[in-house]
């Protein structure tokens, strides 16, 4: 356990020095602030437009950006240390590969989690100012859901990045695979689902369940589940057929963290040095 924390702490410090924490927090903060403050621009107005709309806009932002950030943060986690020679060195140290990978993952998870929290907390403050006092509890609940599920989303893609990194032979290969992963999970699968939805005329009740096969969609469903039903948009119409239990969705997100992480460990333990 002490080993895990030592490794995690070093990774976190690396994250601070590389300005990852600051960079991610500022990026998310500024964009979130923009959405919160000018969210009504799309409907022709200015100013804050209400909690549900803002949360949905913020979730779209999360869904696009956080997977990309997570993948960029960690695509070289293993292959980078391999190329730098430190992996070979550390393999001769008295600790298991699993411990090392988990420690590193914890450090990266802490970097990403803290940055996401800081970024969205800024937006939260702005929203809180624009909301009548009576609805503050609702804002807090909505934002908490958004932040928690965003962090889980980030961690799933972090774990995917580790898996990619454990498999890749070079940093360039890992980088391109990470980009493809982002493209597939965030853009392609979404479009494919829509295409299927249009294509399958009858008996398409199973289709929404496909959404659960994508951590990004799990995230979106979880956020939507926290938003009032009367705000339902086109996306929620599809979502209405799937389980709306927040707990179940949160659990699924956790599975989406653990599954790729498990695969990463398995692959890493057999990686030739």
């Amino acid at each position, binding site marked *: 356990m002490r*080993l895990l924390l030592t490794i995690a702490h070093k990774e976190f410090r690396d994250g601070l*020095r590389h300005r990852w924490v600051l960079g991610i927090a500022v990026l998310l903060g500024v964009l979130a602030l923009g959405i919160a403050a000018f969210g009504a621009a799309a409907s022709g107005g200015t100013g804050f437009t209400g909690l549900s709309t803002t949360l949905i806009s913020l979730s779209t932002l999360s869904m696009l950006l956080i997977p990309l950030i997570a993948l960029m943060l960690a695509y070289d986690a293993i292959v980078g240390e391999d190329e730098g020679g*430190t992996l070979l*060195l550390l393999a001769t140290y*008295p600790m298991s590969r699993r411990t090392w990978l988990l420690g590193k993952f914890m450090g990266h998870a802490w970097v990403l989690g803290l940055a996401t929290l800081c970024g969205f907390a800024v937006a939260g403050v702005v929203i809180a100012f624009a909301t009548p006092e009576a609805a503050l509890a609702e804002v807090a609940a909505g934002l908490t859901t958004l932040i928690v599920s965003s962090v889980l989303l980030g961690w799933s893609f972090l774990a995917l990045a580790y898996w990619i990194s454990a498999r890749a032979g070079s940093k360039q290969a890992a980088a391109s695979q990470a980009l493809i992963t982002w493209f597939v999970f965030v853009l392609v699968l979404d479009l494919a689902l829509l295409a299927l939805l249009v294509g399958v005329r009858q008996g398409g009740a199973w289709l929404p369940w496909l959404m659960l096969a994508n951590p990004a969609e799990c995230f979106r469903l979880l956020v939507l589940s926290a938003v009032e039903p009367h705000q339902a948009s086109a996306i929620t119409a599809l979502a209405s057929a799937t389980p709306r239990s927040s707990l179940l969705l949160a659990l699924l997100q956790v599975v989406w963290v653990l599954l790729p992480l498990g695969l990463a460990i398995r692959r890493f333990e057999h990686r030739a*040095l």
Partner: protein
Amino acid sequence: MTRATTCATTSAIVFDDVSLKHGGVTRLSHLSLEVNRGEVLGLLGHNGAGKTTSMKLMLGLLSPTQGSLSVLGQRPDRAGDRAFRQHLGYLPENVRFYPNLSGRETLTYLARLKGRPTAEVDELLVQVGLGGAADRRLATWSKGMRQRLGLAQALLGEPRLLLLDEPTSGLDPAATEAVYATIGMLKARGVTVVLSSHLLPGVEPVIDRALILGEGKCLALGDLASLRERFALPYVIEMRGAPQDLALRLIREGIPARSSLADGGRLRLEVAPEHRMNALRLCTAFQGLKDLEIRPPSLEALYRRVQAPSGRDPGNGNEGSSESDASDRYQVIDESDHTTVSPSAEDTP
């Protein structure tokens, strides 16, 4: 070679007919070797000869596909316990560490991972001569400094076995000297050291025995004296002011010798080890002699001989040239092994 027959309890490393095939390529073939505790073994060979592969086998990062291997009394690839790895120090050939951490932070981190008190860190930094730069980020360090940091981490926790892969690559002569001094000190403490190198002149004084590898095979193994003897490498005598037909005169006296012209009009003689004293006596007898220098065959010459295709007769004409550039390097880099004989009393017969 007598050392190889000692009993297993004093052996730090035992290779027993170890082969490693990987993807259809034989990386190491039928290597048998015993390294005693407190011995310094030099692993020599070209790139791809199997030096790093042997090290990875000893570290348990690879498993032999044939034969058995024991390191500090354990099978390294099965050694699950922490104690085994705590007693191991390893310096990889290329390690860049973490550019954003300082030297002290890096070494502290590695000490924690190795389960050692961080009090060792400052001491080690001073020992490898990095005390002054310890708090600068590694990104600003030179290659040589990082190499020394690599050595420092290998020394964490007073290892019983040190594996150093090209410990002096990228180091300037002074730093190289310091590394070899450190190795000498460790040897005195009873640490077993295996070091690989293709920079031959420097390692000569440090190593007890040399294992010369070529394409995964053991080409030669033994201490330098016995290897020299076995491969019958000539001694080199260089002199100024000697007559050109000196070799002929020596041959007339029954001393087989070959002569050639070296730089600066110096005459260069190669004589078999057993004839070197007689040859020396004859040479110093000449009146015009200004300067004379005699050198034992260098490790480099040995290395070239061993690497040469088998079946070549030791002492045929091609060897002269290879010995020549070998010893030129030798002369520049290593001054310690020279025996310079100044002709006494300016040529009085």
